[in-house]
């Protein structure tokens, strides 16, 4: 990786590639480094969940109702240790949380990637072609952004019904407009530049100018928005599942685990809702801190 980038750099100026300089800048904040490390560890843990957790909490043959409501640190009748306790069905909380985390990342990343693709396509078309295409697309974007994401997602899911695929559809539907607006802002500035004029004078096809020349120059603000939107999507999925309109109860979701713990909160069984929420908070916080650092580095206005 580093070999390749060193060769690609112009030998006269300096050896450092833009990416290497950016990475070095990023490492300037230990909070941001820690946050990035946490995100990487959490993704690894969620991917490896089936291998590292003590039980599969969604396999009925592996859980026993006799082990229900065990407090953190208690042992089951067979002597198995439950570090974070069990819920009302005798599931190991730790295992259920890691399975839930996997779903959180899946929903967050997939919906963000799809929304990014759709939003970027519409936003950059609006900026490049202008005129009626621009005003039509942006009117839809403005209309949608004047309504809170949670409300649109809630109503869509009320119409579509429960399911992971439906949650992803709802999250894509609420997110694409952010990207469309973000990239349009950047692309409007970029298309005034000489290199676009040059590409147009070469009679390159519009799709080539848009995707090969215009798009790469509009990426930095998108990276920031996309990072923060992953956190937002994870939070929304948990919220919708908590409200009972997200994923069905047969699927592992941190929001559903917390909703389940909420039922027992008044009887003092705190661990069922506290630990999944802490994991959710840690995940969202770490992603937001990474996004915050990226924004500081990529925003030229803050560079004094």
């Amino acid at each position, binding site marked *: 990786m580093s070999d390749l980038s060193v060769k690609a750099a112009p030998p006269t100026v300096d050896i450092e590639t833009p990416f290497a300089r950016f990475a070095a800048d990023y490492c300037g904040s230990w909070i941001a480094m820690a946050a990035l490390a946490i995100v990487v560890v959490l993704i690894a843990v969620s991917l490896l969940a089936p291998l590292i957790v003590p039980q599969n909490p969604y396999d009925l043959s592996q859980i026993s109702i006799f082990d229900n409501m065990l407090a953190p640190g208690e042992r089951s009748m067979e002597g198995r240790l439950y570090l974070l306790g069990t819920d009302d069905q005798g599931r190991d909380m730790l295992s259920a949380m890691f399975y839930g985390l996997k779903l959180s990342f899946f929903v967050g990343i997939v919906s963000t990637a799809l929304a990014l693709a759709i939003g970027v396509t519409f936003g950059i078309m609006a900026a490049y072609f202008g005129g009626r295409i621009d005003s039509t697309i942006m009117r839809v974007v403005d*209309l949608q952004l004047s309504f809170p994401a949670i409300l649109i997602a809630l109503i869509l899911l009320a119409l579509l019904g429960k399911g992971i695929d439906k949650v992803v559809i709802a999250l894509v539907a609420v997110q694409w407009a952010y990207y469309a607006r973000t990239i349009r802002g950047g692309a409007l500035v970029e298309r005034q530049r000489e290199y676009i004029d040059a590409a147009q004078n070469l009679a390159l096809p519009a799709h080539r100018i848009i995707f090969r020349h215009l798009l790469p120059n509009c990426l930095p603000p998108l990276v920031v928005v996309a990072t923060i939107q992953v956190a937002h999507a994870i939070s929304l999925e948990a919220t919708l599942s908590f*409200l009972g309109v997200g994923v069905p109860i047969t699927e592992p979701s941190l929001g559903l685990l917390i909703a389940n713990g909420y039922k027992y909160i008044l009887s*003092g069984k705190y661990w069922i809702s506290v630990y999944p929420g802490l994991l959710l*908070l840690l995940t969202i916080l770490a992603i937001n801190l990474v996004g915050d650092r990226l924004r500081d580095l990529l925003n030229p206005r803050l560079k004094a």
Partner: protein
Amino acid sequence: MVAFLIRRIGQSIFVILAMAALVFLGVFLIGNPIDVLLAPDADQIERAQAIERLGLDKPLWQQFLIFLLDLARGDLGTSFVHGTSAVGLILERLPATMELAFVALTLAIVVGIPLGVIAGLRRESWLGRTIMTGSIVGFSLPNFWFGIMLILCFAVTLQWLPAGGRGPTGSLFGVELSLLNPAGWPNLLMPALTLAIYKVSLVIRLAYSGTREAMLQDYVRFARATGLSPQRILGVHVLKNILIPIVTVLGLELGSMIAFAVVTESVFAWPGIGKLLIDSIARLDRPVIVAYLMIVVALFALINLVVDILYSVLDPRVRLSDTGN
């Protein structure tokens, strides 16, 4: 100004009509209300009669016109569950939600602006850093979980505050409000805080970046040069300028608070329109869902209108550039 107002009101009406069309298409076409309304053993003749009675045999555009006329009359049908007017149900619960949103908004302003200004002035100090890190935590807190943690802390463990419900209210012109009755304040505290926490973070960030930018401006330097006291520079010159974005964003966020009250009200069993919406979705109470959506859309259009007008009053530059078109 008059031309601006007329155009802006026209836009609001367009938004309401567009949303009415979307709600109409979404709710009335995706599911068939006949299946919900009729007994399962109804025969073909009863079915046909019901379709005719509900006007479902008419062409789509006629049905939409009838829907709009009903909407204008404020009649959106009867709740399947409660057996009373759907619009009436929403209006009855609207004060509880509005009260919650306004208290949360006030909290966000009273707590957020001072913290943000301090962080903006003392950017490098530990206090400034703590405030800004805290605001990121506030952004990241899953709202519903924060509410549950408050219940766990203050209602279950310490037993200082009630875990849910609205508590006693006072009456003003026939509207029941918790603020008017001190006995109802403890019930209001935790839901309002839960709803406010995200907005507090938002206000901190806005006030922070506003203060940072304003302190570098020439007018602040000149004000210093003329020997004005720091308090006056901050309280009059800086604050006035950072208030513009905060007023706009908070105005728009009032709408999102009303929407987010769905979550808070569910956690705290607060009897507002958000809880009504969730219950209605769970029970497929279609008239109530439609009534909620149309009233909330109208409310949002109104809020956006007021914010735009306020904005042009606060910042004359906006008004000038807008009427120039």
